[in-house]
Protein backbone atom coordinates (compact mmCIF):
# COMPACT_ATOMS: atom_id res chain seq x y z
CA UNK A 1 0.00 0.00 0.00
CA UNK A 2 2.64 2.51 1.06
CA UNK A 3 4.92 1.24 -1.66
CA UNK A 4 2.20 1.76 -4.23
CA UNK A 5 1.53 5.24 -2.93
CA UNK A 6 5.21 6.14 -3.12
CA UNK A 7 5.50 4.71 -6.64
CA UNK A 8 2.39 6.65 -7.63
CA UNK A 9 3.89 9.84 -6.29
CA UNK A 10 7.11 9.25 -8.23
CA UNK A 11 5.31 8.80 -11.55
CA UNK A 12 3.04 11.64 -10.49
CA UNK A 13 6.14 13.80 -10.04
CA UNK A 14 6.98 13.33 -13.70
CA UNK A 15 3.43 14.29 -14.71
CA UNK A 16 3.63 17.24 -12.33
CA UNK A 17 6.89 18.51 -13.85
CA UNK A 18 5.57 18.18 -17.37
CA UNK A 19 2.26 19.78 -16.36
CA UNK A 20 4.01 22.72 -14.73
CA UNK A 21 6.24 23.28 -17.74
CA UNK A 22 3.16 23.18 -19.99
CA UNK A 23 1.29 25.68 -17.83
CA UNK A 24 4.24 28.09 -17.77
CA UNK A 25 3.94 28.48 -21.53
CA UNK A 26 0.15 28.42 -21.52
CA UNK A 27 -0.01 31.21 -18.96
CA UNK A 28 2.53 33.37 -20.71
CA UNK A 29 1.39 32.91 -24.29
CA UNK A 30 -2.05 31.30 -24.30
CA UNK A 31 -0.67 28.39 -26.30
CA UNK A 32 -0.98 24.71 -25.49
CA UNK A 33 2.41 23.49 -26.63
CA UNK A 34 2.16 20.09 -28.26
CA UNK A 35 5.95 19.88 -28.56
CA UNK A 36 6.27 19.76 -24.76
CA UNK A 37 6.28 15.94 -24.76
CA UNK A 38 9.07 15.90 -27.33
CA UNK A 39 11.15 18.15 -25.09
CA UNK A 40 10.80 15.54 -22.38
CA UNK A 41 11.75 12.86 -24.90
CA UNK A 42 14.84 14.86 -25.89
CA UNK A 43 15.72 15.18 -22.21
CA UNK A 44 15.54 11.41 -21.86
CA UNK A 45 17.62 10.76 -24.99
CA UNK A 46 20.24 13.40 -24.28
CA UNK A 47 20.53 12.19 -20.68
CA UNK A 48 20.79 8.51 -21.60
CA UNK A 49 23.26 9.32 -24.34
CA UNK A 50 25.46 11.50 -22.15
CA UNK A 51 25.50 9.05 -19.27
CA UNK A 52 25.64 5.68 -20.97
CA UNK A 53 27.52 6.51 -24.19
CA UNK A 54 29.76 9.40 -23.23
CA UNK A 55 30.08 8.38 -19.55
CA UNK A 56 29.68 11.90 -18.30
CA UNK A 57 29.19 12.52 -14.61
CA UNK A 58 25.49 12.36 -13.70
CA UNK A 59 25.17 15.84 -12.24
CA UNK A 60 26.99 17.40 -15.17
CA UNK A 61 24.85 15.38 -17.57
CA UNK A 62 21.69 16.63 -15.85
CA UNK A 63 22.83 20.24 -16.18
CA UNK A 64 23.81 19.78 -19.82
CA UNK A 65 20.46 18.16 -20.58
CA UNK A 66 18.61 21.02 -18.91
CA UNK A 67 20.64 23.53 -20.91
CA UNK A 68 20.13 21.81 -24.26
CA UNK A 69 16.39 21.28 -23.87
CA UNK A 70 16.09 24.83 -22.55
CA UNK A 71 17.67 25.92 -25.83
CA UNK A 72 14.96 23.96 -27.67
CA UNK A 73 12.37 25.95 -25.74
CA UNK A 74 14.04 29.22 -26.65
CA UNK A 75 14.18 28.15 -30.28
CA UNK A 76 10.47 27.31 -30.34
CA UNK A 77 9.64 30.87 -29.32
CA UNK A 78 11.98 32.38 -31.88
CA UNK A 79 11.15 30.15 -34.85
CA UNK A 80 7.48 29.33 -34.34
CA UNK A 81 5.64 31.32 -31.71
CA UNK A 82 7.12 34.71 -32.50
CA UNK A 83 6.38 34.67 -36.25
CA UNK A 84 2.79 33.72 -35.41
CA UNK A 85 2.15 36.37 -32.75
CA UNK A 86 -1.06 38.18 -33.48
CA UNK A 87 -2.45 35.13 -35.24
CA UNK A 88 -5.24 33.22 -33.50
CA UNK A 89 -4.04 30.83 -30.82
CA UNK A 90 -5.40 27.96 -32.88
CA UNK A 91 -2.78 28.53 -35.59
CA UNK A 92 -0.05 28.73 -32.98
CA UNK A 93 -1.18 25.49 -31.37
CA UNK A 94 -1.25 23.72 -34.72
CA UNK A 95 2.24 25.02 -35.45
CA UNK A 96 3.49 23.43 -32.23
CA UNK A 97 1.95 20.17 -33.47
CA UNK A 98 4.13 20.53 -36.56
CA UNK A 99 7.13 21.16 -34.33
CA UNK A 100 6.35 18.06 -32.33
CA UNK A 101 6.27 15.95 -35.49
CA UNK A 102 9.58 17.48 -36.57
CA UNK A 103 11.25 16.92 -33.19
CA UNK A 104 10.05 13.32 -32.96
CA UNK A 105 11.66 12.63 -36.29
CA UNK A 106 14.75 14.66 -35.52
CA UNK A 107 15.28 12.32 -32.57
CA UNK A 108 14.96 9.38 -34.93
CA UNK A 109 17.57 10.92 -37.21
CA UNK A 110 19.99 11.49 -34.33
CA UNK A 111 19.52 8.38 -32.23
CA UNK A 112 17.95 5.89 -34.66
CA UNK A 113 14.82 3.85 -34.21
CA UNK A 114 16.02 1.71 -31.32
CA UNK A 115 15.30 2.75 -27.74
CA UNK A 116 18.22 3.80 -25.54
CA UNK A 117 18.37 2.96 -21.88
CA UNK A 118 20.08 4.78 -19.06
CA UNK A 119 21.96 2.73 -16.46
CA UNK A 120 20.62 2.89 -12.90
CA UNK A 121 21.95 6.09 -11.45
CA UNK A 122 22.53 5.43 -7.78
CA UNK A 123 23.28 1.72 -7.49
CA UNK A 124 20.91 -1.22 -7.56
CA UNK A 125 20.51 -2.13 -3.89
CA UNK A 126 16.85 -1.65 -2.97
CA UNK A 127 16.14 0.44 0.09
CA UNK A 128 13.56 -0.63 2.65
CA UNK A 129 11.51 2.07 4.21
CA UNK A 130 8.54 1.50 6.50
CA UNK A 131 7.82 -1.81 4.81
CA UNK A 132 8.13 -0.33 1.34
CA UNK A 133 10.87 -1.32 -1.05
CA UNK A 134 12.19 1.33 -3.37
CA UNK A 135 15.14 1.57 -5.71
CA UNK A 136 17.73 4.24 -4.91
CA UNK A 137 17.07 5.99 -8.16
CA UNK A 138 13.39 6.24 -7.40
CA UNK A 139 14.37 8.15 -4.29
CA UNK A 140 16.84 10.18 -6.35
CA UNK A 141 14.08 11.06 -8.77
CA UNK A 142 11.77 12.25 -6.02
CA UNK A 143 14.53 14.32 -4.43
CA UNK A 144 15.34 16.05 -7.72
CA UNK A 145 11.63 16.58 -8.43
CA UNK A 146 11.04 18.21 -5.07
CA UNK A 147 14.17 20.35 -5.35
CA UNK A 148 13.23 21.49 -8.83
CA UNK A 149 9.69 22.39 -7.81
CA UNK A 150 11.04 24.26 -4.79
CA UNK A 151 13.46 26.26 -6.93
CA UNK A 152 10.68 27.01 -9.38
CA UNK A 153 8.42 28.24 -6.59
CA UNK A 154 11.16 30.55 -5.30
CA UNK A 155 11.96 31.88 -8.76
CA UNK A 156 8.32 32.62 -9.50
CA UNK A 157 7.58 34.42 -6.24
CA UNK A 158 10.89 35.90 -5.11
CA UNK A 159 12.78 37.02 -8.19
CA UNK A 160 12.11 39.91 -10.51
CA UNK A 161 12.14 37.49 -13.44
CA UNK A 162 9.42 35.35 -11.87
CA UNK A 163 7.27 38.39 -11.17
CA UNK A 164 7.77 39.59 -14.72
CA UNK A 165 6.74 36.20 -16.09
CA UNK A 166 3.59 36.26 -13.98
CA UNK A 167 2.85 39.83 -15.01
CA UNK A 168 3.15 38.97 -18.71
CA UNK A 169 0.97 35.90 -18.10
CA UNK A 170 -1.69 38.04 -16.43
CA UNK A 171 -1.86 40.76 -19.03
CA UNK A 172 0.69 40.99 -21.80
CA UNK A 173 -0.35 44.38 -23.09
CA UNK A 174 -0.37 46.01 -19.68
CA UNK A 175 3.11 44.58 -19.13
CA UNK A 176 4.21 46.12 -22.40
CA UNK A 177 2.82 49.50 -21.33
CA UNK A 178 4.83 49.30 -18.14
CA UNK A 179 7.97 48.87 -20.18
CA UNK A 180 8.52 45.18 -19.55
CA UNK A 181 10.57 43.57 -22.33
CA UNK A 182 7.76 41.20 -23.21
CA UNK A 183 9.55 39.44 -26.06
CA UNK A 184 12.57 38.61 -23.98
CA UNK A 185 10.43 37.46 -21.08
CA UNK A 186 8.44 35.17 -23.38
CA UNK A 187 11.60 33.69 -24.83
CA UNK A 188 13.02 33.02 -21.39
CA UNK A 189 9.72 31.53 -20.24
CA UNK A 190 9.80 29.09 -23.15
CA UNK A 191 13.40 28.29 -22.24
CA UNK A 192 12.54 27.76 -18.57
CA UNK A 193 9.71 25.48 -19.58
CA UNK A 194 12.14 23.53 -21.76
CA UNK A 195 14.56 23.20 -18.84
CA UNK A 196 11.85 21.69 -16.64
CA UNK A 197 10.61 19.31 -19.33
CA UNK A 198 14.20 18.31 -20.12
CA UNK A 199 14.93 17.50 -16.49
CA UNK A 200 11.68 15.53 -16.29
CA UNK A 201 12.89 13.54 -19.29
CA UNK A 202 16.28 12.96 -17.71
CA UNK A 203 14.51 11.62 -14.62
CA UNK A 204 12.28 9.16 -16.48
CA UNK A 205 15.15 7.86 -18.60
CA UNK A 206 16.32 5.29 -16.02
CA UNK A 207 12.72 4.18 -15.40
CA UNK A 208 11.71 3.49 -18.99
CA UNK A 209 13.56 3.11 -22.23
CA UNK A 210 13.96 6.34 -24.12
CA UNK A 211 11.82 6.02 -27.24
CA UNK A 212 10.94 8.66 -29.79
CA UNK A 213 7.21 8.30 -29.11
CA UNK A 214 7.39 8.46 -25.30
CA UNK A 215 6.86 12.21 -25.26
CA UNK A 216 3.57 12.21 -27.10
CA UNK A 217 1.97 9.58 -24.90
CA UNK A 218 3.17 11.20 -21.67
CA UNK A 219 1.95 14.59 -22.84
CA UNK A 220 -1.55 13.33 -23.57
CA UNK A 221 -1.80 12.01 -20.02
CA UNK A 222 -0.36 15.21 -18.67
CA UNK A 223 -3.32 17.04 -20.21
CA UNK A 224 -5.47 15.05 -17.79
CA UNK A 225 -3.32 16.24 -14.88
CA UNK A 226 -3.57 19.82 -16.06
CA UNK A 227 -7.34 19.67 -16.42
CA UNK A 228 -7.77 18.11 -12.98
CA UNK A 229 -5.74 20.96 -11.50
CA UNK A 230 -7.72 23.62 -13.31
CA UNK A 231 -6.07 24.82 -16.50
CA UNK A 232 -3.78 27.74 -15.81
CA UNK A 233 -2.71 27.31 -12.23
CA UNK A 234 0.77 26.07 -11.35
CA UNK A 235 -0.16 24.71 -7.90
CA UNK A 236 -3.16 23.05 -9.56
CA UNK A 237 -0.89 21.43 -12.12
CA UNK A 238 1.24 20.04 -9.31
CA UNK A 239 -1.70 18.59 -7.42
CA UNK A 240 -3.17 17.28 -10.68
CA UNK A 241 0.10 15.59 -11.63
CA UNK A 242 0.61 13.87 -8.31
CA UNK A 243 -3.03 12.77 -8.03
CA UNK A 244 -2.93 11.36 -11.55
CA UNK A 245 0.13 9.30 -10.64
CA UNK A 246 -1.63 7.95 -7.55
CA UNK A 247 -4.95 7.22 -9.27
CA UNK A 248 -3.22 5.49 -12.14
CA UNK A 249 -1.19 3.16 -9.96
CA UNK A 250 -4.05 2.26 -7.62
CA UNK A 251 -6.53 1.71 -10.43
CA UNK A 252 -4.00 -0.43 -12.28
CA UNK A 253 -3.49 -2.53 -9.18
CA UNK A 254 -7.01 -2.84 -7.91
CA UNK A 255 -9.25 -2.49 -10.96
CA UNK A 256 -7.58 -3.68 -14.13
CA UNK A 257 -4.12 -3.36 -15.56
CA UNK A 258 -5.32 -3.75 -19.15
CA UNK A 259 -6.84 -0.28 -19.07
CA UNK A 260 -3.78 1.33 -17.45
CA UNK A 261 -3.47 3.86 -20.25
CA UNK A 262 -7.16 4.77 -20.25
CA UNK A 263 -7.58 5.93 -16.64
CA UNK A 264 -5.97 9.29 -17.28
CA UNK A 265 -8.42 9.95 -20.10
CA UNK A 266 -11.44 8.73 -18.19
CA UNK A 267 -10.52 11.20 -15.44
CA UNK A 268 -9.90 13.88 -18.05
CA UNK A 269 -13.36 13.48 -19.55
CA UNK A 270 -15.12 13.08 -16.23
CA UNK A 271 -13.59 16.28 -14.84
CA UNK A 272 -14.29 18.22 -18.02
CA UNK A 273 -17.91 17.15 -18.13
CA UNK A 274 -18.63 17.59 -14.45
CA UNK A 275 -16.33 20.48 -13.49
CA UNK A 276 -14.66 22.13 -16.47
CA UNK A 277 -12.88 24.58 -14.17
CA UNK A 278 -10.90 21.75 -12.60
CA UNK A 279 -11.45 20.20 -9.22
CA UNK A 280 -9.76 23.06 -7.47
CA UNK A 281 -11.50 25.74 -9.45
CA UNK A 282 -10.01 28.61 -11.37
CA UNK A 283 -8.46 31.65 -9.84
CA UNK A 284 -10.10 34.85 -10.90
CA UNK A 285 -7.98 36.58 -13.47
CA UNK A 286 -6.68 33.43 -15.08
CA UNK A 287 -6.91 33.11 -18.79
CA UNK A 288 -9.26 30.60 -20.42
Amino acid at each position, binding site marked *: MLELALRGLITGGVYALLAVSLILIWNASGVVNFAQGEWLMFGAFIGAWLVSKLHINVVLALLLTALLVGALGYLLEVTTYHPLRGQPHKSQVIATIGVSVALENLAMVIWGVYPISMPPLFGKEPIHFLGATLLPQEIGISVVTILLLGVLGLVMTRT*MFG*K*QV*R*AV*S*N*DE*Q*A*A*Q*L*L*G*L*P*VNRILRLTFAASGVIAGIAGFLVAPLYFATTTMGASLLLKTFAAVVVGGFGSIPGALVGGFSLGLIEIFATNYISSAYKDAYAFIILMAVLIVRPGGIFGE*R*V*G*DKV
Partner: protein
Amino acid sequence: MLELRQVTVAYGASPVLHSVSFEVPSGACSALIGANGAGKTTTLRAISGLVRPRQGQILFEGQDITNWAPERITAAGISHVPEGRRIFAGLTVLENLEVATTPRKDRSGVKSDLVQVYTLFPRLHERRTQLGWSLSGGEQQMLAIGRAIMARPRLLMLDEASLGLAPLVVVEVYKAIQEINRQGITVLLVEQNVSLAMRLAQWSYALQRGVLTLSGTTNDLKNDPRLREVYLGA
Protein backbone atom coordinates in the same frame (compact mmCIF):
# COMPACT_ATOMS: atom_id res chain seq x y z
CA MET B 1 7.14 68.25 -23.97
CA LEU B 2 4.99 66.02 -26.16
CA GLU B 3 4.01 66.99 -29.63
CA LEU B 4 1.78 65.25 -32.16
CA ARG B 5 2.24 66.38 -35.74
CA GLN B 6 -0.56 65.45 -38.13
CA VAL B 7 -0.94 61.96 -36.75
CA THR B 8 -3.25 59.67 -38.70
CA VAL B 9 -4.13 56.24 -37.35
CA ALA B 10 -6.22 53.64 -39.11
CA TYR B 11 -7.40 50.19 -38.12
CA GLY B 12 -7.63 48.32 -41.39
CA ALA B 13 -9.08 50.61 -44.02
CA SER B 14 -11.00 53.05 -41.83
CA PRO B 15 -9.06 55.91 -40.25
CA VAL B 16 -9.73 56.56 -36.57
CA LEU B 17 -7.59 59.67 -36.25
CA HIS B 18 -7.31 62.25 -39.01
CA SER B 19 -4.18 64.32 -39.00
CA VAL B 20 -4.30 65.21 -35.31
CA SER B 21 -1.81 67.78 -34.03
CA PHE B 22 -1.43 69.19 -30.54
CA GLU B 23 1.23 69.94 -28.00
CA VAL B 24 1.26 69.01 -24.34
CA PRO B 25 3.15 71.66 -22.38
CA SER B 26 5.70 70.57 -19.82
CA GLY B 27 4.65 70.47 -16.18
CA ALA B 28 1.00 71.16 -16.84
CA CYS B 29 -2.08 69.00 -16.65
CA SER B 30 -3.84 68.65 -19.97
CA ALA B 31 -7.04 66.90 -20.91
CA LEU B 32 -8.11 65.18 -24.09
CA ILE B 33 -11.89 65.23 -24.16
CA GLY B 34 -14.53 63.90 -26.46
CA ALA B 35 -17.45 61.56 -26.72
CA ASN B 36 -17.26 57.79 -26.84
CA GLY B 37 -15.47 56.63 -29.98
CA ALA B 38 -13.95 60.02 -30.76
CA GLY B 39 -10.43 58.55 -30.88
CA LYS B 40 -9.12 59.48 -27.42
CA THR B 41 -7.90 56.04 -26.48
CA THR B 42 -6.38 55.55 -29.91
CA THR B 43 -4.42 58.77 -29.45
CA LEU B 44 -2.92 57.46 -26.22
CA ARG B 45 -2.21 54.08 -27.79
CA ALA B 46 -0.38 55.79 -30.62
CA ILE B 47 1.70 57.84 -28.19
CA SER B 48 2.72 54.79 -26.16
CA GLY B 49 3.55 52.76 -29.25
CA LEU B 50 0.73 50.20 -29.12
CA VAL B 51 -0.47 51.25 -32.57
CA ARG B 52 1.63 52.64 -35.36
CA PRO B 53 0.45 55.88 -36.93
CA ARG B 54 -0.09 55.66 -40.65
CA GLN B 55 1.17 59.20 -41.06
CA GLY B 56 2.60 61.93 -38.90
CA GLN B 57 5.14 62.27 -36.16
CA ILE B 58 5.15 62.02 -32.39
CA LEU B 59 7.88 63.90 -30.57
CA PHE B 60 8.74 63.58 -26.91
CA GLU B 61 11.17 66.11 -25.46
CA GLY B 62 12.31 66.89 -28.97
CA GLN B 63 12.96 63.24 -29.86
CA ASP B 64 11.04 61.50 -32.63
CA ILE B 65 9.48 58.46 -30.93
CA THR B 66 7.01 57.64 -33.69
CA ASN B 67 8.04 54.08 -34.42
CA TRP B 68 9.59 53.09 -31.12
CA ALA B 69 8.61 49.90 -29.31
CA PRO B 70 6.30 50.42 -26.30
CA GLU B 71 8.96 49.41 -23.78
CA ARG B 72 11.41 51.92 -25.21
CA ILE B 73 8.82 54.67 -24.98
CA THR B 74 8.10 53.79 -21.35
CA ALA B 75 11.81 53.78 -20.60
CA ALA B 76 12.06 57.22 -22.21
CA GLY B 77 9.65 58.59 -19.59
CA ILE B 78 6.04 58.10 -20.70
CA SER B 79 3.71 56.01 -18.55
CA HIS B 80 0.25 55.04 -19.75
CA VAL B 81 -2.47 53.96 -17.32
CA PRO B 82 -4.83 52.11 -19.65
CA GLU B 83 -8.58 52.12 -19.56
CA GLY B 84 -9.91 49.38 -17.36
CA ARG B 85 -6.82 49.67 -15.11
CA ARG B 86 -5.36 46.37 -16.28
CA ILE B 87 -3.59 45.54 -13.04
CA PHE B 88 -1.95 42.13 -12.75
CA ALA B 89 -4.65 40.12 -11.04
CA GLY B 90 -2.41 37.24 -9.98
CA LEU B 91 0.28 39.44 -8.43
CA THR B 92 0.15 41.09 -5.02
CA VAL B 93 -0.11 44.85 -4.72
CA LEU B 94 3.58 45.07 -3.85
CA GLU B 95 4.56 42.79 -6.76
CA ASN B 96 2.48 44.92 -9.12
CA LEU B 97 4.48 47.93 -8.01
CA GLU B 98 7.78 46.07 -8.19
CA VAL B 99 7.47 44.80 -11.76
CA ALA B 100 6.72 48.33 -12.86
CA THR B 101 10.29 49.34 -11.99
CA THR B 102 11.65 47.08 -14.75
CA PRO B 103 12.59 49.83 -17.23
CA ARG B 104 14.39 51.88 -14.60
CA LYS B 105 18.13 52.05 -14.51
CA ASP B 106 18.46 53.56 -11.02
CA ARG B 107 17.59 50.80 -8.59
CA SER B 108 18.42 53.00 -5.60
CA GLY B 109 15.39 55.25 -5.84
CA VAL B 110 12.90 52.38 -5.86
CA LYS B 111 12.45 52.30 -2.08
CA SER B 112 11.71 55.98 -1.74
CA ASP B 113 9.31 55.86 -4.66
CA LEU B 114 7.49 52.99 -3.01
CA VAL B 115 7.14 55.15 0.11
CA GLN B 116 5.85 57.94 -2.07
CA VAL B 117 3.19 55.72 -3.64
CA TYR B 118 2.12 54.49 -0.22
CA THR B 119 1.91 58.08 1.04
CA LEU B 120 -0.21 58.99 -1.94
CA PHE B 121 -2.45 55.95 -1.48
CA PRO B 122 -2.28 54.67 2.11
CA ARG B 123 -4.85 52.04 1.17
CA LEU B 124 -2.31 50.31 -1.07
CA HIS B 125 0.04 49.98 1.88
CA GLU B 126 -2.70 48.31 3.91
CA ARG B 127 -3.35 45.87 1.10
CA ARG B 128 0.24 45.37 -0.09
CA THR B 129 0.20 41.57 0.32
CA GLN B 130 -3.21 41.03 -1.28
CA LEU B 131 -3.61 39.72 -4.80
CA GLY B 132 -4.69 42.21 -7.43
CA TRP B 133 -8.05 40.64 -8.18
CA SER B 134 -9.22 41.03 -4.59
CA LEU B 135 -9.03 44.84 -4.73
CA SER B 136 -12.06 47.05 -5.20
CA GLY B 137 -12.39 49.13 -8.36
CA GLY B 138 -11.06 52.26 -6.68
CA GLU B 139 -8.12 50.41 -5.16
CA GLN B 140 -7.33 48.92 -8.56
CA GLN B 141 -7.28 52.40 -10.07
CA MET B 142 -4.95 53.58 -7.31
CA LEU B 143 -2.69 50.62 -7.93
CA ALA B 144 -2.69 51.27 -11.66
CA ILE B 145 -1.63 54.86 -11.05
CA GLY B 146 0.90 53.87 -8.40
CA ARG B 147 2.33 51.27 -10.75
CA ALA B 148 2.71 53.85 -13.50
CA ILE B 149 4.65 56.27 -11.30
CA MET B 150 6.97 53.50 -10.11
CA ALA B 151 8.49 53.73 -13.59
CA ARG B 152 9.37 57.39 -12.78
CA PRO B 153 7.69 58.95 -15.78
CA ARG B 154 7.99 62.57 -16.79
CA LEU B 155 4.68 62.28 -18.61
CA LEU B 156 1.77 60.35 -17.11
CA MET B 157 -1.19 59.49 -19.36
CA LEU B 158 -4.43 58.33 -17.76
CA ASP B 159 -7.26 56.78 -19.74
CA GLU B 160 -10.71 57.11 -18.15
CA ALA B 161 -9.44 57.10 -14.60
CA SER B 162 -12.88 57.87 -13.21
CA LEU B 163 -14.82 55.28 -15.14
CA GLY B 164 -16.96 53.02 -12.99
CA LEU B 165 -15.85 54.50 -9.67
CA ALA B 166 -18.03 55.81 -6.86
CA PRO B 167 -18.11 59.64 -6.66
CA LEU B 168 -16.16 59.75 -3.40
CA VAL B 169 -13.47 57.49 -4.82
CA VAL B 170 -13.27 59.66 -7.94
CA VAL B 171 -12.49 62.64 -5.72
CA GLU B 172 -9.77 60.68 -3.95
CA VAL B 173 -8.20 59.50 -7.19
CA TYR B 174 -8.28 62.94 -8.75
CA LYS B 175 -6.73 64.53 -5.66
CA ALA B 176 -3.88 62.08 -6.04
CA ILE B 177 -3.50 62.93 -9.72
CA GLN B 178 -3.34 66.60 -8.78
CA GLU B 179 -0.68 65.84 -6.21
CA ILE B 180 1.36 63.89 -8.75
CA ASN B 181 1.14 66.81 -11.14
CA ARG B 182 2.21 69.20 -8.38
CA GLN B 183 5.35 67.13 -7.87
CA GLY B 184 6.40 67.99 -11.41
CA ILE B 185 5.04 65.14 -13.52
CA THR B 186 3.25 66.31 -16.66
CA VAL B 187 -0.23 64.76 -16.86
CA LEU B 188 -2.38 64.01 -19.88
CA LEU B 189 -5.93 62.96 -19.01
CA VAL B 190 -8.43 61.24 -21.24
CA GLU B 191 -11.95 61.64 -19.94
CA GLN B 192 -15.49 61.13 -21.07
CA ASN B 193 -16.49 63.05 -17.99
CA VAL B 194 -15.65 66.40 -19.56
CA SER B 195 -16.52 68.66 -16.64
CA LEU B 196 -14.39 66.59 -14.27
CA ALA B 197 -11.40 66.72 -16.57
CA MET B 198 -11.76 70.43 -17.17
CA ARG B 199 -11.81 71.17 -13.49
CA LEU B 200 -8.29 69.77 -13.22
CA ALA B 201 -6.67 70.58 -16.55
CA GLN B 202 -5.09 73.86 -17.55
CA TRP B 203 -5.10 72.89 -21.21
CA SER B 204 -7.77 71.01 -23.13
CA TYR B 205 -8.04 69.41 -26.53
CA ALA B 206 -11.31 68.16 -27.94
CA LEU B 207 -11.64 65.30 -30.39
CA GLN B 208 -14.73 64.77 -32.52
CA ARG B 209 -14.85 61.65 -34.66
CA GLY B 210 -11.11 61.50 -35.02
CA VAL B 211 -10.58 65.18 -35.74
CA LEU B 212 -9.14 67.68 -33.30
CA THR B 213 -11.74 70.46 -33.27
CA LEU B 214 -10.84 72.59 -30.27
CA SER B 215 -7.68 73.26 -28.37
CA GLY B 216 -6.50 75.89 -25.97
CA THR B 217 -6.54 76.78 -22.32
CA THR B 218 -9.38 75.27 -20.42
CA ASN B 219 -10.73 78.69 -19.53
CA ASP B 220 -10.99 79.67 -23.18
CA LEU B 221 -12.66 76.39 -24.09
CA LYS B 222 -15.19 76.64 -21.29
CA ASN B 223 -16.65 79.72 -22.95
CA ASP B 224 -16.59 78.26 -26.42
CA PRO B 225 -20.10 77.50 -27.68
CA ARG B 226 -18.79 74.57 -29.72
CA LEU B 227 -17.92 72.67 -26.54
CA ARG B 228 -21.51 71.50 -26.31
CA GLU B 229 -21.07 69.58 -29.53
CA VAL B 230 -18.10 67.77 -28.02
CA TYR B 231 -20.24 66.74 -25.08
CA LEU B 232 -22.94 65.41 -27.30
CA GLY B 233 -20.54 63.69 -29.64
CA ALA B 234 -22.13 65.24 -32.69
